[in-house]
């Protein structure tokens, strides 16, 4: 191979052809363009005219240049040029390929993969054994050298993971290196980490080490935190001396449930800084929707920061029964202490109950609200039964009202006694009551009771067998302080005291806040305490892959809470969303305190910056260039010779058609075809067959409907047009009246929208003939694959009960009198809509008085389309039976088809024959 600068030539001798170019120049120059011969009667008038000026009969210089370029490109192309020809690789002996394969490798993984393959190819041609080691997925034991060919299929095992190699993995490898000397190719992700240098030393002891790492700066996101009403997302990078910007996008579901970008912040990383923070100050509504943050344009797990529910702040509605608050009496306002307790950790909303329910808050707190109107009550109950949490506080109004006195109020957990009681006041006996320790079943269990919480007044619950069960906090004397009741998926909780300090000192104590927290009203701290996680088990719901995509977790083992307390992702804890009960924790690829440091390599090590510069054969592009130039030359020559005008129309048509083909929006075409289809199908009777995706079956179905159409045309007044193939997903079914649906075992099920369309089609008088084409050998069980598929396909369809066709069904006499319905097979009967239970046979009538309507489906397996199918010449495509009996069977099949179409088009009018005697009688005959 001849190598000139960055380009090598596989067949350099061909380049000698370039010497011939000047010769070509002279030759081409001398040959003028050939004249065109034209037949033209007006030549008689031309005779004797001379050319006023001599057009040069030499080829113009630019055309010559074009041709020379084309020829030169062809010569160069055939000489086999290669950009960046692979330099011969040195080294002998075994080769160990080590890959960090962390999330940081993900972005440039395709290059790394190419480098591995290049190394494997080189090793294969040099006969070097190779071993592959993925540091992120360490395998126990010593890496085994094998031939490059055997190692090639394992390259996929080096693909990056969403976590980073651990120090243990590196030291384990350093301790368990194979015997003997070998060279190493280290595909580094460019990040420094503990254990790297030790491993490097160990590898260098065995032979030369080559490092390949991407020169691009690695950026990542640390877990988001919540502070002062805003979300902080730290952006990390390897500190460099240049300023950089990063677009951080907050992704989440929009109200329609479609994932989209909710907000975007541009973060500037000053020169030399390795960390900056993106601040998202969003309305709570939007903030609660965020599921993840990501650096725009970077697809690595590190550039994604998942949001667990720690970022989610609860939306709590406060409703104050006091009406207009009296100015200056804020401390007496029923909701003052609630606001104080909840404001730091939840988003509070206010307003009327109707407005609040529209916002669908997590919880509604009603402080001393006695009456709720009936509509509001209904809406509130609906909301509770769908999982809402209603917390009510008692108060003078509730105590004075008749709510829940005699009957159970659904908005109260218990029945209340009239009046309530007060203790320890000036006018009452006894001491204010303290609290009992919380029972074990209570959500407050374990909270420490401060000694100074006393209750002076409360509303009393009516004694009830359920009362103890419903009580989750009680006073010393056993009277309930807090009662709760499940209602649907939600809960109604009543504090029997006021939410302000009027009746008790509870709202003044820290216990009040803790109780609120326990009621899941307050947001949990961003990182759960280790103690809190003790004893819990977390199950991965979705995990991140190295490229930042969320995947279904599958069956990963549960993670003990202790491991979750220090969420450093590794093999046993892949980044993702983990769930325990109703809590969700996010484990991100980067721990909160992670800092990114660039890996520095000793000077003795060859570091390949960026990609392995792959060999790029230039032959194809050069030859294409030569071809393109020759095409230009062709057009230019034609233009010069005046021959272009003749072809102009055709050429321009072709060009326009080509351009249209390329740029025509797909939707436009679909729209057009949909319109023409609807037009065609609605301008005459058209039989449709459902496209199954199997070309042969679709062809037979089309041919079958064609044959049936011809029979209909000849014998009946139905004159159907050419049958149409119906794409259930795209086409409008409303324009059809009859669909033939051959069921194949492997056809895809229609989408839910399509089922809606199909059901509308069936309800509005359309008919589907399902044909399992298996002669119904299984007798409507699920024993044949097509039968099973039919069951699956038809399950979402709105089909009435079916029965085997009764002898007096109207299908047996809509046009021909039939009793069996063969197709290509003479199978068993077919199934149609069950006749009404009360149908009775009238006196002297051969059939029952059946209800009106068209059976929406006819199900069978006799492969009717094959019996009906005709080819272009109108001859049957498939044999049916043997001899005359077979032809008779085909005839009956056609008759069945005629009856079927007649049934679709005319309904049950043949059934009306039962009324003939009555009609005749009425006429006086």
């Amino acid at each position, binding site marked *: 191979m001849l190598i000139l600068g960055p380009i090598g030539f596989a067949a350099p001798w061909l380049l000698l052809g370039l010497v011939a170019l000047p010769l070509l120049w002279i030759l081409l120059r001398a040959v*003028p*363009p*050939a*004249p*065109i*011969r*034209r*037949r*033209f*009667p*007006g*030549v*008689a*008038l*031309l*005779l004797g*005219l001379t*050319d*006023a*000026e*001599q*057009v040069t*009969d030499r080829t113009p210089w630019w055309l010559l240049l074009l041709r020379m370029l084309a020829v030169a490109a062809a010569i160069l192309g055939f000489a086999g040029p290669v950009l960046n020809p692979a330099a011969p690789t040195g080294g002998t002996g075994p080769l160990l390929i080590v890959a960090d394969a962390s999330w940081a490798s993900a972005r440039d993984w395709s290059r790394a993969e190419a480098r591995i393959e290049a190394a494997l190819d080189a090793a294969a041609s040099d006969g070097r054994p190779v071993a592959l080691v993925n540091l992120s997925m360490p395998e126990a034991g010593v890496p085994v050298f094998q031939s490059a060919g055997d190692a090639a299929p394992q390259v996929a095992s080096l693909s990056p993971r969403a976590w980073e190699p651990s120090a243990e993995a590196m030291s384990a490898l350093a301790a368990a290196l194979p015997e003997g000397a070998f060279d190493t190719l280290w595909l580094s992700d460019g990040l420094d980490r503990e254990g790297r240098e030790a491993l490097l030393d160990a590898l260098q002891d065995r032979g030369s080490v080559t490092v390949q790492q991407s020169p691009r700066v690695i950026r990542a996101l640390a877990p988001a935190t919540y502070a002062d009403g805003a979300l902080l997302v730290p952006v990390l990078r390897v500190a460099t001396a240049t300023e950089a910007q990063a677009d951080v996008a907050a992704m989440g579901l929009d109200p329609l449930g479609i994932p989209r970008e909710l907000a975007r912040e541009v973060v500037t990383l000053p020169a030399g800084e390795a960390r900056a923070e993106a601040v998202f100050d969003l309305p709570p509504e939007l903030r609660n929707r965020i599921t993840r943050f990501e650096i725009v344009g970077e697809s690595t797990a590190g550039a994604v920061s998942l949001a667990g529910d720690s970022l989610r702040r609860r939306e709590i509605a406060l409703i104050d029964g006091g009406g207009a608050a009296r100015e200056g009496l804020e401390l007496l306002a029923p909701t003052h202490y609630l606001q104080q307790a909840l404001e730091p950790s939840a988003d509070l909303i206010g307003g009327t109950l109707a407005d609040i329910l529209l916002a669908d808050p997590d919880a509604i707190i009603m402080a001393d609200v006695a009456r709720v109107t009936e509509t509001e009550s209904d809406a509130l109950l609906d909301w509770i039964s769908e999982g809402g949490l209603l917390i009510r506080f008692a108060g003078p109004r509730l105590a004075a009202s008749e709510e829940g006195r005699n009957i159970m109020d659904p908005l109260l957990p218990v029945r209340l006694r009239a009046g309530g009681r007060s203790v320890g006041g000036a006018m009452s006996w006894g001491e204010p009551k303290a609290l009992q320790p919380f029972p074990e079943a209570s959500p407050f269990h374990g909270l420490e009771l401060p000694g100074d919480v006393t209750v002076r007044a409360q509303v009393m619950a009516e004694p009830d067998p359920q009362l103890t069960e419903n009580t989750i906090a009680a006073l010393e004397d056993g009277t309930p302080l807090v009662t709760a009741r499940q209602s649907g998926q939600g809960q109604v909780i009543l504090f029997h005291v006021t939410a302000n300090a009027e009746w008790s000192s509870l709202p003044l104590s820290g216990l009040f806040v803790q109780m609120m927290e326990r009621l899941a009203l307050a947001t949990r701290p961003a990182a759960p305490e280790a103690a809190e996680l003790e004893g819990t088990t977390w199950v991965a719901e979705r995990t991140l892959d190295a490229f930042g995509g969320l995947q279904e977790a599958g069956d990963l083992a549960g993670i003990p809470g202790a491991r979750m307390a220090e969420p450093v992702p590794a093999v046993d804890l892949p980044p993702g969303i983990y769930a325990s009960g109703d809590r969700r924790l996010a484990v991100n690829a980067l721990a909160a305190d992670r800092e990114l440091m660039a890996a520095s390599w000793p000077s003795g090590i060859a570091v390949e910056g960026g990609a392995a510069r792959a060999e790029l054969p230039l032959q194809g592009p050069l030859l294409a260039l030569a071809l393109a130039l020759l095409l230009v030359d062709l057009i230019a020559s034609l233009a*010069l*010779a*005046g*021959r272009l*005008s003749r072809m102009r129309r055709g050429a321009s048509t072709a060009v326009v058609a080509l351009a249209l083909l390329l740029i025509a929006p797909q939707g436009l075409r679909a729209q057009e075809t949909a319109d023409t289809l609807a037009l065609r199908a609605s301008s005459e009777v058209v039989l449709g067959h459902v496209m199954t995706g199997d070309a042969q079956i679709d062809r037979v179905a089309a041919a079958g409907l064609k044959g049936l159409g011809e029979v209909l045309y000849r014998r009946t007044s139905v004159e159907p047009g050419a049958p149409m193939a119906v794409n259930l997903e795209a086409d409008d079914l409303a324009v059809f009246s009859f669909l033939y649906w051959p069921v194949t075992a492997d056809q895809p099920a229609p989408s839910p929208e399509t089922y809606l369309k199909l059901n509308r089609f069936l309800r509005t008088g359309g008919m589907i003939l399902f044909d399992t084409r298996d002669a119904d050998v299984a007798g409507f069980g699920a024993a044949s694959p097509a039968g099973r598929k039919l069951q699956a396909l038809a399950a979402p369809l709105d089909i009435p009960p079916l029965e085997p066709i009764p002898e007096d069904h109207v299908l047996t006499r809509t046009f021909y009198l039939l009793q069996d319905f063969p197709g290509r097979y003479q199978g068993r009967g077919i199934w149609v809509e069950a006749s009404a239970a009360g149908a009775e046979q009238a006196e002297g009538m051969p059939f029952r008085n059946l209800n009106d309507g068209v059976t929406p489906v006819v199900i069978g397996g006799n492969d009717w389309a094959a019996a009906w199918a005709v080819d272009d010449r109108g001859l049957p495509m498939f044999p049916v039976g043997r001899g005359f009996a077979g032809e008779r069977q085909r005839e009956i099949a056609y008759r069945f088809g005629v009856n079927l179409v007649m049934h679709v088009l005319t309904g049950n009018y043949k059934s009306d024959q039962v009324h003939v005697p009555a009609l005749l009688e009425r006429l006086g005959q």
Partner: protein
Amino acid sequence: MIPAAPLHASAGLRRRAEEMSHILPPLLAAARQLAATVQLGAHGRRRAGLGDEFWQYRAAHQGDEARAIDWRRSARADAHFVREREWQAAQSVHLWVDDARSMEFTGDDSRPVKADRARLLALALAVLLIRSGERVGLADPATPPRAGEVQLMRLAARLTAPAGEADYGAPEGRAMQPHARAVFISDFMGDPVAVETALTEAADRGVTGALLQVLDPVEEAFPYQGRTIFESMGGMLAHETRKAGDLRDRYLERLAERKDRLATLASRTGWQYSCHHTGDPAPGALLWLFHAMERLA
């Protein structure tokens, strides 16, 4: 058993007949369709003569036979009146349609060749004339003017005969009846002297008529460029140019000159001249021809 030879002969005859009838009706049908675009009114000669239609009453004068007097009209006045009828003598019309190779040209596949248009116009004119009672024939002695629908079939058969071998055609006036009408349809691209001779010869015999020059729009536009060898349709004539675009103006000049010469010749001999392009609709040209026939009468 039927002998083989007669079977072959009859089959051949039938095939030829079918071919013939296959060719004729389309041309005839097209011609009839074209003729239908011209509304025929009363086709009188606008002067008194032998005929069925009433022309005028005039006062009887010396020499009128007694039986010529219209007694009914005369009874209403004091004088005697003679009832005159319109002269409705039939005319003989000779058609000459150029069948030379040059007429086989069309500049665009979407347009008919000139010969097609010429034949169509000629036959449509024949339909109109025969419908109004004239006798129509061709300029050659083989098809003398005759009246009646059958003549249409003969004309159609003659007009669809294979084209001649010559590059350019020239009319012949020898077979024309004296004082007949004649219609020459050609592109008149050939030697103008032949046309002049035929025309003066015809004029000498009292024959008047119309010249219709049928040209393709390309022949009027000359949209050619570049190095070109122009050949006549038969390939007899050829002209090579290096730059066809330059010849355009001079060609158009010559074409105008040729048209002018034909128009002058026509006016001098009492003929009518018009030019028709195959790109234009045929009814216009037919109307002109028909009116030209009327003007001549």
